[in-house]
């Protein structure tokens, strides 16, 4: 079928059309959450798709963070986390995201075109473990504090020092929620103020019932000056102290500090061990603005079974305070349960933006991560750098191509022009082939493509040199061309196969950008073989048919 010129031309045209077809831009529908409502937008996708390093975006590799909680079944937890992340990113609205498990302990998330990386990281990394607990009404901490202080005195822990050093740690602990104003002045004042009245009790000087600092009385609520939070936290975590915490209760910090007068306080809540309900029973969550306070709130719906349990438990706790705990932080001041609560409720978020509320609603709906995740590899490329790279790559490609064309035409004359025609088809085939297999074009890939333009003519050069040799040996033009192609074939196949082999290893070991390079290289080699062997040959056949009696060849 390859013998007649017509069938060859048809094949080339079909190949070219297929490549053009696969290179056409497509549109994709993406649902984005804008102001609490899902909005369908269409985005244009160009082919071959651009990698993160060219269009900008974010690449994250995540592993289970077992520094606080140890997973009992890491494999299952990772799979669970994968499902949760898929749902979250689906809701987040990114065109063509990639969420994939790599090996046994890693999840890779790629989000092209993300403009706000901090927000994307928060959505991916937030554990979103929601739970409701009743505040302790047995004054458990009041009773335990003296014993704790005695234990600390035996350990030689003194009040006062160490508070200032922990300053930065406090801010880290609070997730950067607090404004980063310099609070050294406050801190020294507070230290003096706190240590003087209660000499002796380290913890009891730091931790005081909320009512004593001017809060409306609530059982189980304590206030700690914000700058002393890290110290109180580390003291409470000491095994000698933790041992003395009464059974049946647990403690949690508030999510944001509260200011009384000029002094910000972090609130410490002593809570019942028994959880009323957790986020696993949640079926829907929406962000809203509170009608009265204009603050952001998240309303939620529980499933049927969860609703039954919740209403039964809240009925038993009317007039008690219920803390809403998200990722081990108490959200807002616990509200009073005024009556039995059914399937729906709301979380008040304090001074957060509606966007943050939306992101929280999104993560709550998608479900909690079984174990916190840590990011072991994070790469972000801004859209401007990507644009620079594309521009540079295209300029290099154009200049490189012009140089190659000049060399070929000057050296091989008309035959060189044939090779240039084949080179144009080569670029089309390589790009089209990449689009067909849904490969992504990365920056190294772009470099590989530019490089391969130089290498692609190698097959042509081999053939032309052979034809020249045959002509020198006195063969006719037609025979020289036939034999030239035939004899060059071995070298072309062998050299290309070994190049593909090394590219395959590159593909195997590389991450995103390098994989893109390997694919471009392989596709380039394949395309160059097709164009050099098949297309150039066809051009010669057409040429010979037009001029059957050609006695000299322009080569």
């Amino acid at each position, binding site marked *: 079928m390859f013998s007649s010129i017509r069938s060859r031309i048809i094949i080339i045209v079909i190949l070219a059309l297929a490549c053009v077809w696969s290179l056409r831009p497509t549109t994709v529908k993406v649902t984005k959450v804008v102001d609490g409502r899902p909005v369908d937008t269409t985005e244009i996708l160009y082919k071959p798709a651009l990698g993160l390093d060219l269009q900008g975006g974010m690449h994250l590799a995540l592993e289970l963070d077992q520094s606080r909680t140890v997973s009992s079944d890491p494999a299952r937890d990772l799979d669970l986390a994968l499902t949760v992340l898929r749902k979250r990113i689906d809701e987040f609205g990114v065109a063509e995201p990639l969420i994939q498990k790599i090996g046994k302990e890693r999840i890779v998330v790629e989000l092209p075109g993300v403009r706000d990386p901090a927000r994307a990281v928060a959505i991916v990394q937030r554990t979103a473990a929601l739970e409701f607990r009743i505040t302790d009404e047995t004054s458990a901490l009041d009773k335990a504090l003296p014993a704790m202080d005695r234990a600390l005195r035996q350990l030689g822990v003194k009040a006062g020092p160490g508070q200032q050093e922990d300053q930065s740690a406090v801010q880290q602990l609070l997730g950067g929620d607090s404004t980063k104003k310099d609070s050294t002045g406050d801190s020294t004042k507070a230290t003096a103020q706190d240590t003087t009245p209660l000499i002796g009790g380290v913890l009891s000087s730091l931790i005081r019932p909320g009512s004593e600092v001017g809060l409306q009385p609530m059982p189980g609520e304590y206030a700690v000056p914000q700058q002393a939070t890290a110290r109180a936290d580390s003291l409470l975590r000491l095994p000698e102290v933790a041992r003395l915490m009464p059974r049946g209760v647990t403690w949690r910090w508030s999510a944001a500090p509260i200011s009384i007068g000029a002094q910000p306080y972090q609130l410490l809540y002593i809570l019942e061990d028994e959880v009323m309900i957790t986020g696993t029973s949640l079926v829907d969550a929406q962000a809203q603005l509170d009608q009265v306070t204009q603050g952001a709130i998240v309303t939620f719906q529980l499933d049927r079974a969860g609703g039954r349990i919740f209403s039964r438990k809240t009925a038993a706790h009317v007039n008690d305070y219920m803390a809403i705990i998200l990722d081990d932080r108490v959200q807002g001041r616990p509200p009073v349960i005024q009556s039995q609560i059914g399937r729906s409720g709301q979380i008040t978020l304090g001074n957060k933006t509606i966007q943050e509320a939306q992101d929280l609603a999104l993560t709550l709906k998608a479900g909690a991560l079984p174990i916190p995740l840590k990011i072991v590899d994070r790469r972000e490329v801004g859209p401007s750098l990507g644009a620079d790279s594309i521009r540079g790559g295209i300029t*290099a490609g154009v200049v490189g191509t012009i140089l190659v064309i000049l060399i070929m035409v000057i050296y091989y004359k008309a035959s060189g022009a044939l090779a240039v025609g084949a080179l144009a088809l080569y670029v089309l085939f390589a790009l089209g082939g990449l689009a067909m297999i849904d490969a992504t074009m990365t920056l190294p890939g772009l470099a590989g493509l530019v*490089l391969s333009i130089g290498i692609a003519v190698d097959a042509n050069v081999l053939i032309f040199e052979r034809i020249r040799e045959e002509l020198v040996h006195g063969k006719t033009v037609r025979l020289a061309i036939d034999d030239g192609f035939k004899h060059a074939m071995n*070298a072309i196949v062998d050299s290309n196969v070994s190049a593909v082999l090394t590219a395959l290893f590159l593909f195997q070991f590389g991450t995103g950008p390098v994989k893109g390079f390997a694919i471009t290289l392989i596709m380039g080699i394949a395309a160059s073989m097709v164009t050099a062997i098949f297309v150039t040959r066809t051009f010669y056949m057409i040429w010979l048919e037009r001029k059957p009696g050609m006695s000299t060849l322009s080569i």
Partner: protein
Amino acid sequence: MIRLFANANYDFISYRWKAIWATVIIVIPGLLLLLIRGLNYSIEFTGGTLVQIESPRPLNVADLRTGLDRNGIPGSEITEFGSSQEFVVRARLQREGVDPNNTQETAGAVTAALQKVLGAGGATCLERAPTGTEPWCVKRTEAVGPKVGGELRQKAFLAIFLSFFAVLAYLAYRFEWRFGLAAVIATAHDIVATIAFIAVLHLEVSLVVVAAILSMVGYSLNDTIIIFDRVRENLRKMKRESFITVLNRSINETLPRSVLTHGTTLSSLLALTIFGGEVIRPFALVMFFGVFTGTFSSIFIASPVLMWIERKWPGVAARGLKPDKAAPAPSRKPQPEPVSSKR
């Protein structure tokens, strides 16, 4: 018609010792430097944080460095990236209480320190560079845990090593083991020479550079194979000639092709080096060197090694007595090929 080296007849093989000495003289200092200074691995391989920032006004590298030193990021590596408003900061954070594998913490520390030095800012750069009073912005962030980096390094070495054996196996199948061995020894030479080159220039070894080394391997092999293909063909034709004559003849016959292909490849690489941008430049540089060392090794390493192997273990197959299964039998002309007269 222009024909470069049309009837070239250089006695390449007789220069083999000089060539090998030249290699040794170039490679040894590079390897010594490698031992003393080590390779400059990128943070992809060592773990750490890279932040590329763009500032609305020109900055001074020294100021930036002392500022970061003072704010808890000691010993960071800061390089200007194209202009005095664009910088790459590389930090390898080793601090008590910070899990280096938790890149959230390490990258956060670098951004916080930058905010202390440069003021508020640190959002992702959009299409336009910041000007006037606009805050500084981040063009690129890479935060890699040492664990991921270590794995990557291991994989890179494995890839280079395994590709070796795959090529050896393929060449052994297509030619025969003597050719395969000679080609792989030449390739080993290329890799060692390239690593020495990287050590001398103190180029940063990133994933892209490893990609360049592997493609350089492919390119150099390509060259060797094309010469060997000629050798195999000429061995069948020139049964009465000595092995050295066959080798020299094959190298000379493929010389025009080599010149042309290297010419086009180098012009592509030149375009990449000049226009491709900072990220791609190391790749282009390594490939540039690779083209030269690849050409050199195909002629002066692969061919003499093949000769020595042939001397030590003379084989019938190498002399073309065994019919080659894989390659179609070339249509042989009855009269002997004209051999150009020796000088």
